[in-house]
């Protein structure tokens, strides 16, 4: 059963927001040469981007 258009677009919007936030986090960490910057890049930035990608892929599968 496919998702209604409104729900689909809402999920895509959320996926985009997660990815945009993750990318912004990654951009900020690039201003520093420090272990915390590395951890934040991988943990927070990577985590948000990964969550957005997974949400998008799940939306595709359900669609």
């Amino acid at each position, binding site marked *: 059963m496919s998702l209604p258009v409104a729900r689909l677009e809402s999920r*895509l919007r959320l996926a985009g927001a997660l*990815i945009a936030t993750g990318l912004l986090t990654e951009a900020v960490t690039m201003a520093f040469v420090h272990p915390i910057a590395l951890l934040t890049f991988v943990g927070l930035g990577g985590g948000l981007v990964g969550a957005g990608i997974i949400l998008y892929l799940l939306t595709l599968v359900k669609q």
Partner: protein
Amino acid sequence: MYLFDALLGLALAAALVLVLRPAVTRSRDGKIFAFAALFLLPLLAFGLGGSEQLTRSEQTRFCLSCHIMAPWGKSLYIADARYIPAVHFQDHLVPTDAACYTCHTDYAQFGTLQAKLEGLHHVWVQYFGTPMKPIHLYQPFNNQTCLHCHAGARQFEEDPTHSAMMSLLASGTLSCVSSGCHDMVHDVGQLPKQKFWSPKP
């Protein structure tokens, strides 16, 4: 770095377009755009950025940004040429911006990967665990790290002491830094008694 900046900017702009106008995905072109914006570009940006972050983690200032490593950083400035790390650092026998990484990376097949994983472990322990006291190497210093540069070098090869024990050095039976030959290394316990070199600004 510029490629990463450009890719990050592009990925961010594309993601924001979908946040503001998700209706663009109703068309076929919009679906392709969404695939690029929500899958390809973020993955590429993460890969490139991660690669840059890992390269930065090889820098001396990255290692020394943890306070616990400060004495080891200071030992690089000991004004005594018998101290092996100090003379390598001060005379630029190793790249000064990657001094720690150059001497503390195993040059075997997966040496770089192993160093990165150990580095990540150090970062984790620094913030979420209890660092070992006193800090020490996991394993005895590997002669291959020295031989990676010195083997084949004329000054090293023509030294009768080195040539006489080359097989022992190559096999690791005799350690370069702990067999009474070049055993003055960081020695951070002796720092208060040392004089230090101050590089000209």
